[in-house]
């Protein structure tokens, strides 16, 4: 964006750095053209990019079941949901670009494995019940995180979160509806639902990030208002809301340590296997290679379409890219 040469002369005021700190302290949003510390910009790019990549890669595990959805109704819903994930990725890339990085660079960083996406999408979807479990648990956990992020300090990111949260609600409800249907169905359907819950429960807790005392980014991110709730706070919230839902379904959460703690007013839960989590983050989950290879292949297979579209635009007179290039 062009900066106008017409700027109002300023009198002696706070330095840009002081102004930034004042805005953060006052709970105000930082907007793209405000001065910001380089580390804030880098952190924001890393976090928004990772979030965007997660939305895009997140289409794969569920997309796997579109052709095999058990009814036309379920199929239409799943298509709409996966379509939303693509849209959410685009909102987030657009927010990320306000920080001075291009869409192509972000794509490249993902494809080279230099930026990450959520560990949760490196698990396979083995049965139809997984689509239910993902909507209920994975989207449930994501919503808990994203609701907190609507209050994040960077304006474009916060606005993208508001839009996404609004659209996300149906994702969780359709997932719960699938689980409800299976839980009330035949013995085989019930078993399928329980099996999906067994496999998705722990990864859903882990996807909210390492415990606070191990999280390298939490302290600075809290100071800058990027994070407004810690990983452990969000995780506890998610567990508290999900336990009664599992009870309603008549399904068992795979955690023998799960117990209501009267004193804390929260559910206690067992130790998360962080070694397993870090293995997946490091690239050794069940589907890491497959997910990234699929993404890169889709990008490369689409090259001729992008080239054709540019060639078409160049031929148009006064329209499209040709007009402004």
């Amino acid at each position, binding site marked *: 964006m*062009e900066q106008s040469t*017409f700027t109002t002369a300023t009198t002696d005021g706070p330095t840009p750095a002081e102004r930034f700190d004042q805005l953060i302290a006052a709970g105000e949003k930082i907007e793209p*053209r405000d001065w910001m510390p380089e580390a804030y910009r880098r952190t924001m790019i890393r976090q928004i990019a990772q979030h965007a990549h997660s939305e895009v890669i997140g289409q794969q595990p569920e997309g796997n079941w579109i052709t095999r959805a058990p009814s036309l109704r379920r199929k239409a819903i799943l298509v709409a949901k996966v379509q939303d994930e693509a849209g959410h990725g685009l909102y987030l890339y657009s927010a990320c670009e306000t920080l001075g990085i291009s869409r192509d660079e972000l794509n490249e960083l993902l494809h080279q494995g230099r930026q990450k996406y959520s560990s949760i999408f490196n698990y396979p979807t083995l049965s139809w019940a997984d689509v239910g479990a993902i909507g209920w648990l994975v989207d449930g956990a994501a919503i808990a995180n994203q609701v907190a992020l609507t209050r994040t300090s960077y*304006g474009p990111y916060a606005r993208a979160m508001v839009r996404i949260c609004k659209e996300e609600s*149906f994702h969780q*409800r*359709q997932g*719960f509806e699938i689980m409800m249907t299976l839980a009330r169905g035949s013995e085989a359907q019930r078993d399928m639902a329980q099996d999906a819950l067994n496999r998705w429960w722990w990864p859903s807790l882990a996807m909210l990030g390492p415990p606070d005392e191990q999280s390298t980014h939490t302290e600075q991110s809290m100071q800058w208002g990027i994070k407004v709730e810690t990983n452990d706070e969000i995780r506890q919230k998610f567990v508290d*809301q999900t336990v009664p839902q599992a009870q309603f379904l008549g399904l068992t959460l795979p955690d023998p340590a799960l117990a209501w703690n009267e004193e804390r007013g929260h559910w206690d839960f067992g130790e998360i296997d962080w070694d397993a989590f870090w293995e997946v983050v490091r690239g050794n989950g069940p589907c890491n290679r497959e997910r990234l290879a699929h993404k890169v292949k889709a990008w490369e297979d689409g090259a001729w379409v992008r080239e054709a579209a540019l060639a078409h635009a160049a031929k148009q007179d006064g329209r499209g890219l040709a007009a402004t290039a």
Partner: protein
Amino acid sequence: MNDLNDRTTTTTAAPVGGYPLWEVFVRARRGLNHVHAGSVHAPDADTALQHARDVYTRRAEGVSVWVVPSAAIVASDPDARDDWFEGSKPYRHPTFYTIPDEVGHL
């Protein structure tokens, strides 16, 4: 966006013999999007920005102003409105799913 749509059928280019037209977007306060407020005529970008400030933010209505040449805006065809913005699919809305009250907030 209606006024933008409606305008494209009449004036997208600079009026003959006059200043070009600029669309004005104002951010009411930090954290909100810039929202279309109206337009101004001005010979160049800097003047357009100054006019936009003077015309649309005299009572502190904003903390940031954008001006965009009206001719640079590509708008959807008002006649295609029904095709482009067909009724939303009901299953895209949370209310489509019946979840018993005792499940709590989902």
